[in-house]
């Protein structure tokens, strides 16, 4: 089926769980929309929020961040730190006015090929309905976003969480 | 007898009737101690809802030598001897046989449930064998109703069965009835001499 708008989805995944889960979807020959582009990390703990901004800026319409289930992190607590970090980050995105529906966090284990397919499919459909994201393509310098809280307003939000 | 069902159990070597445990084990040919109270016997017992102590608790009480508590309940007289418990027990506790043993012990002792209808029916049944060698259901029912004071019980069934030819009004005695009597007498004799339980 052809759609009017084919969004660009970027998935940031950890190598141990979600990447392996996506592999499983492949070995199981499950079919899902081809919109997603996967970027592999050792751990969700490595995923810097800046990458998300960069991806939005480069034209991603939706982003998925996915790693191991809580407690299953290959590196013990990486996904836990990631979770905390993204909780803060969501507040910031909200503050800027990004529709948080474009950013999905999930846990997909190496055994959950089906779940991977489900999440990617749902996200793709959701973003199709939302249409392209334009406000970010002209966002200036992502380096500002490395967590240096120069803006007092942002700092206030950060401290609050 | 006072209701001892909920009273505190004081356990000691004196209050735990070990002789009773051994007696039940000997009569039933089944271990009592093996039971680990899983409750599977009670789970499948068709009579559980009519009993005060569920079957597993009966075993538990025997384990603790609490004969009086067993006697104080009616459970043993509500057991239908269906063998479900013995069949399903994971520990090969032959609870149906234990129930038999308990009824025998209660039958021998002066237990509170001596007057139970079940016991009466059993007694009449056995008497029938002694007198006639075989069962005559009509007589059994009639005598039971008279003795239990329930004259009108099953009043409607009788004629119906008669009309269907299901109840014999008359019965012939077995030719070798004397043999039967001898068996009864010998058993009585053996018990007197302590040769049989």
């Amino acid at each position: 089926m052809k759609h009017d708008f084919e969004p660009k989805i970027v998935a940031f995944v950890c190598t141990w769980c979600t990447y392996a889960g996506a592999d499983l979807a492949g070995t199981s020959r499950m079919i899902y929309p081809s919109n997603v582009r996967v970027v592999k990390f050792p751990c969700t703990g490595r995923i810097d929020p800046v990458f998300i901004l960069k991806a939005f800026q480069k034209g991603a319409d939706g982003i998925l961040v996915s790693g191991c289930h809580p407690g299953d992190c290959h590196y013990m607590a990486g996904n836990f730190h990631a979770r905390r970090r993204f909780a803060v980050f969501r507040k910031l995105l909200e503050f800027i006015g990004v529709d948080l529906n474009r950013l999905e966090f999930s846990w997909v284990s190496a055994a959950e090929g089906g779940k991977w397919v489900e999440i990617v499919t749902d996200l793709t459909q959701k973003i199709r309905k939302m249409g392209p994201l334009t406000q970010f393509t002209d966002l200036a310098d992502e380096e500002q976003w490395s967590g240096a809280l120069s803006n007092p307003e942002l700092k206030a939000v950060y401290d609050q969480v | 007898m006072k209701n001892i069902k909920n009273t505190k159990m004081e356990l000691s070597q004196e209050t735990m009737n070990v002789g009773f445990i051994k007696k039940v084990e000997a009569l039933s040919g089944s271990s009592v101690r093996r039971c680990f109270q899983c409750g599977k016997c009670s789970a499948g017992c068709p009579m559980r809802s009519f009993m005060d102590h569920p079957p597993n608790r009966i075993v538990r009480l025997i384990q603790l030598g609490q004969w009086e508590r067993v006697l104080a309940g009616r459970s043993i007289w509500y057991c239908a001897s269906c063998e479900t418990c013995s069949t399903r027990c994971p520990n090969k506790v032959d609870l149906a046989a234990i129930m038999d043993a308990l009824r025998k012990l209660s039958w021998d002792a002066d237990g509170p449930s001596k007057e139970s209808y079940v016991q009466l029916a059993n007694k009449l049944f056995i008497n029938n064998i002694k007198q006639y060698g075989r069962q005559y259901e009509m007589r059994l029912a009639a005598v039971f109703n008279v003795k239990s004071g329930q004259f009108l019980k099953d009043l409607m069934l009788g004629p119906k069965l008669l009309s269907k030819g299901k109840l014999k009004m008359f019965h012939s005695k077995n030719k070798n009835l004397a043999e039967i009597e001898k068996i009864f007498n010998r058993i009585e004799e053996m018990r007197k001499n302590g040769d049989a339980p």
Partner: protein
Amino acid sequence: MSPTKNVLNYSYYPGCSLHASGKEYDESARGLFKALKIGLQEVPDWFCCGATPAHNVDELLSLALCAKNLELADAVEGDLAVACAACFSRLKTTQHKLGENEVKRKQVEQAIDAKVSLDKPVKHLLEILARDFGLENLQKSVKKPLSGLKIATYYGCLLTRPPDVPQLDCTEAPTIMERVLETTGAETVAWSHRLECCGANFTLSRPGVVLKLTGDILASAKRAGADCLVVACPLCHGNLDIRQKEIEEATGEEYHMPVFYITQLLALACGVPPGKLGFNSMIVNPTPLLKEKNLI
């Protein structure tokens, strides 16, 4: 190949009920065996086996009565055929217990003043039909298939329990009644209460109990879509058939479910005239059902 003639001969212990409330069981069994050319000779002067009441309160008496009956049966040629599930259970239990317990055997021998003999195989009619005679032969003997009849086979307690005594069939999932009945082309239903107790022993003393238990059994058979019940025990029959009206009154459920002895239906299928099968002795009238299915 037609069944070999007269090679099967049995001694026969009918038991008290088959001479009274279960007489149609006796009649139909004899009719069936005659039709199949299986010999059946009643043990003379047999006694009551003591049934449940005896072992209930006096195991020794119970064992002694059965041992005496086994002794009497020895005088008649052929394995001992038993129809009543309770008698069957008592006789088998006696063989089992006396076989493994020397003390008990000695006591019983003293009580009956004779050596107990445990060698004669005791067989339920079902066993004879399914194994000795054989399902294939049985199928070949069918003259009037019972197709269209949906049957709930009721085993009750004593045919299969406890596991190491009757050894008639698997204790928890027996199929012998189904296998035997299916040779006639009848359909057996899968249902939940095949093995539940009917409360036989309490029919006199605690009819309320019996009503509850048999009520559950009838309800289960009805749920499974059965037209009728089939039993192999006069005590089960007594509770399910004779008390069915009461159950209907007590529960407000309508059943009208005829309760056949397995021999009645088999004999019918093997061409024994219906008039000889005691259908009119049954409390729940089976005629409408049998007519509806074109079986009489």
